[in-house]
Each structure stands twice: as C-alpha cells, then as structure tokens.
C-alpha cells in the first residue's frame, strides 16, 4: 500500500499508473459535479414551489459548480483539461445516473437525499488520501454537500409524510434513483477499484462503500414510510 503524501510538484515523479488513475478520477468527479446542475436547473429552477425554494435550487447548483471548479483546477494543474464537460449533453456523462433529467420537485428532493449522498461518499474517499491538493479541496466541499443531502432528506421526508399522491410521487422518485445510486459505486469486483486503494487514491472498495451507504439510507427510507426498493432490481453493476 502506498503511504506517500504527494503534492502537486511531486506529481510528475509518480508512477504512470498513479498519474493515470488520478487524472481519471478527477475527470470523472468533475463531470459528476457539473452533471447535477445540468439535470435540474433547466426545469426545476423555474418550477420550484415558491421563490424560497427557487433560491435553494440556484444556490445548490452554484455550490456544485464551485465543486466542479475546484476539481477542474486540480485536473488542469496535472495537465488534464476537463472544461469540455461543462457543455456536454447529459447523455455523454461518464456516470449513468447523470444521463437523464429531473423535471419535478420530488425528483430534486430525492436526488439530494440519495444521489448527493453518494457524492459525499465519493468525496469521502479522497480524505486523507495520497494526493494532498485533492484532500484539501474535498474538505471545503463536504460541508456544502452535507447541506444538499440534509435539504433533500428533509424535503423528501416532508413530502412523503403528506401521504396520498405526494407519498406516491416520492416513492416513484426513490424507485427511480435508488438503483442508480447503488450503481454509482461501480462494480463490486472492479480491479481498478483495488488499484485506486493501492495508490491511496481511495479508501474503501466499491462494495464496502455501497454497503455502508445502504445501511445509512435504509433506516431513513423506513422513517419516511416508503417501501425500500429491491437493491438488485434495475441495477447495471452488481
């Protein structure tokens, strides 16, 4: 296991596999950060229930764009231009969960509850990792990501507690986003995942992170009074 702490000026001295993996992970993370706003700004910002909620949507998008900026800066400093993902159509996104759109309020709330939470898991992977600029950047991003998750969790819970049609709408959104969220962790037997861990670029295996995530969201869904989707149904990666 690699235990070095690598600063930017040492990047070039690293093993080519280290360089490739770091470039790959910051490119994908950049794409995920800008992928969120591309899902919901167009339709949810104008249609959110009231001006206060419109401001929440806009602030969330601005913070995600700032996360993109921080990742794009790191990518750029190690010689990788990721600016093209700013304007990519959703269908080109690296991660399948972002190849869609969100057009309603419960979709935005559940996205915060489930998908932003995966985002937090992804950022957590870099904490105390080998590449110091990444470690420092995620420490500034995590509190904002937690804010998005809290908002989504509370809002989805409140909508579900209304019962009737609203509860059904939240259930549909959960049924849609839960399998996508679980897929975001990647294949359980991914050889690349092991190499990320070897180089100190990630802390947990894909399956370990996914299991921790499931253990966290299951009681939250129970508290909302919604059915917990079959964790294997509609999955692309197991």
């Amino acid at each position, binding site marked *: 296991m690699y235990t070095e702490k690598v600063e930017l000026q040492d990047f070039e001295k690293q093993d080519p596999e280290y360089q490739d993996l770091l470039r790959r992970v910051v490119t994908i993370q950049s794409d995920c950060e800008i992928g969120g706003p591309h899902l919901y700004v167009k339709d949810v910002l*104008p249609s959110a229930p009231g*001006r206060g909620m419109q*401001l929440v949507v806009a602030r969330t998008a601005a913070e995600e*764009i700032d996360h993109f900026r921080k990742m794009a800066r790191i990518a750029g400093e190690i010689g990788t231009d990721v600016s*093209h993902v700013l304007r990519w159509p959703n269908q080109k996104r690296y991660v399948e969960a972002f190849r869609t759109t969100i057009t309603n309020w419960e979709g935005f709330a559940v996205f915060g509850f489930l998908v932003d939470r995966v985002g937090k898991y992804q950022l957590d992977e870099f904490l105390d990792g080998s590449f110091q600029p990444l470690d420092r950047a995620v420490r500034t991003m995590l509190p904002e990501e937690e804010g998005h998750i809290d908002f989504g969790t509370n809002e989805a819970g409140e909508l579900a507690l209304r019962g009737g049609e609203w509860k059904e709408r939240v259930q549909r959104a959960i049924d849609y986003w839960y399998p996508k969220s679980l897929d975001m962790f990647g294949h359980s037997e991914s050889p690349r995942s092991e190499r990320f861990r070897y180089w100190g670029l990630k802390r947990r295996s894909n399956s370990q992170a996914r299991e921790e995530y499931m253990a966290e969201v299951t009681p939250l869904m129970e508290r909302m009074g919604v059915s917990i989707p079959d964790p294997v149904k509609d999955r692309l990666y197991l």
Partner: protein
Amino acid sequence: MVEPAPNTSKLDDYLKDMIQAAYAASNVGVAHLKDDPEAVDQAVTDLEEILGTIMEGNVDEWVSS
C-alpha cells in the same frame, strides 16, 4: 513540474467570479424573502442568467476575454 492544461487559471478565475456573483444574488434573495418580493424576483432572474451562462460552457469565449 507538470505543464498545466492551457487556460487552467483563466477558467478558474472566470468561474470564481461567476460563482461569487451567484452567491451574492442568492444572499440578496434570501435576505429579502419576507419584505421585498421584487428584489427576490430580480435575484432569481439574475441567478437563472448566471447559471445559464456557466452551463452553456463557452469556455473559449471566457478565456479569450
């Protein structure tokens, strides 16, 4: 030291300015939610414009200015 990708700093500076403008508009909107609906309307309009510009992603234009 590895050679940075072209325009890394320029892109970062541009986005920083735009994000700060979005945060400022958001703060104005939140501050006036209860007392000034016109200020809130303007804040939302400004935010739609700022976010729309960023997400259009005309990077070449941004870094050439």
